[in-house]
């Protein structure tokens, strides 16, 4: 198994996963979406809310703010020794007290922790008029995206099979397939079809080119062939802001490793 990055930034990454089964690729995708933990606001005490939004809507908006997560210095609340009561090892308290007229933003949340804080400071929460006031105290902790999407560290996280584009010698370079390709990756090279440099990975496997070739009356089979490599996958991972993408990928892989170790142990116990 091999991972080859074609781009790796804090907010988004794309990579090719080589020599893996489709089951593994999907397991990794699901692990990154729903098993990698991130901080999010869960409980809110509202001392004062004179804004036009109901308490519930205000709280919901607070919950969706991505919080920078530090998985090394905190434990998940579900595994914490406080048994879910909330303590400094698992929970971060954020407070906010704002008086109008102004726009309340995520930057107004003051966190008790230096690392766990809103990833973006300019998320609008509610607009206040004169004499309106919002005073709240919020508790944030780490959970899995499986419990609620606000805890998922990813936005876009998916894969496709690696495309394999070939043509046989019946191709006469008529260029009909070039016109229909929505990703504009094909071009005519001499009297045959070819690919633009480095464009292969953007093929969406839509097979419109095959269809166009068939429509040209070439026979029962198109001259261009779109196949998928079923051992190679192109991943796209985008972070919501809580964790850098590289961390999401690492944590996802680590989760899979721990799970398979657990399974292995359980099986060895049964075997005795």
């Amino acid at each position, binding site marked *: 198994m091999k991972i080859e990055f074609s781009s790796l930034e804090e907010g988004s990454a794309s990579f090719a996963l080589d020599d893996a089964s489709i089951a593994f690729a999907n397991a990794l995708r699901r692990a990154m979406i729903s098993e990698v933990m991130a901080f999010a606001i869960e409980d809110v005490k509202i001392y004062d809310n004179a804004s036009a939004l109901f308490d519930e809507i205000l709280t919901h908006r607070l919950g969706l703010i991505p919080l920078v997560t530090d998985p090394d210095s905190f434990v998940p609340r579900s595994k914490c020794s406080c048994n879910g009561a909330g303590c400094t090892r698992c929970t971060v308290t954020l407070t906010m007290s704002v008086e109008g007229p102004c726009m309340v933003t995520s930057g107004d949340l003051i966190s008790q922790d230096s690392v766990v804080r809103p990833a973006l400071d300019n998320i609008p929460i509610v607009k206040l*008029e004169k004499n309106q006031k919002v005073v709240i105290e919020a508790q944030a902790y780490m959970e899995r995206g499986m419990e609620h999407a606000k805890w998922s560290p990813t936005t876009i996280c998916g894969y496709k099979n690696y495309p394999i584009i070939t043509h046989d010698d019946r191709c006469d370079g008529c260029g009909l397939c070039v016109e229909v390709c929505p990703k504009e990756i094909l071009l005519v090279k001499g009297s045959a079809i070819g690919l633009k440099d480095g464009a292969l990975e953007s093929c969406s496997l839509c097979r419109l080119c095959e269809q166009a070739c068939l429509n040209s009356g070439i026979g029962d089979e198109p001259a261009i062939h779109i196949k998928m490599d079923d051992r190679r996958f192109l991943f796209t991972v985008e972070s919501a802001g809580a964790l850098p993408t590289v961390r999401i990928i690492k944590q996802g892989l680590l989760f899979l490793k721990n799970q398979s170790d657990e399974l292995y142990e359980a099986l060895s116990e049964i075997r005795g």
Partner: protein
Amino acid sequence: MIPVRCFTCGKVISTAYEEYKRRRDENEDPKKILDDLGMDRYCCRCMLLTHKEIIDELNPYQ
């Protein structure tokens, strides 16, 4: 208020709304504004394109 995140993909889009609104009111082409703001997917683009702000109409009734 503009939703904090895109309903479909979860990207934080609310941070782009102020600038989008200002430039749209200056009659700039929405396509260009959305491209500049890094709204690549059509799910996020429609969040900004179709939003109607009503907080100012609600506020007098507090």
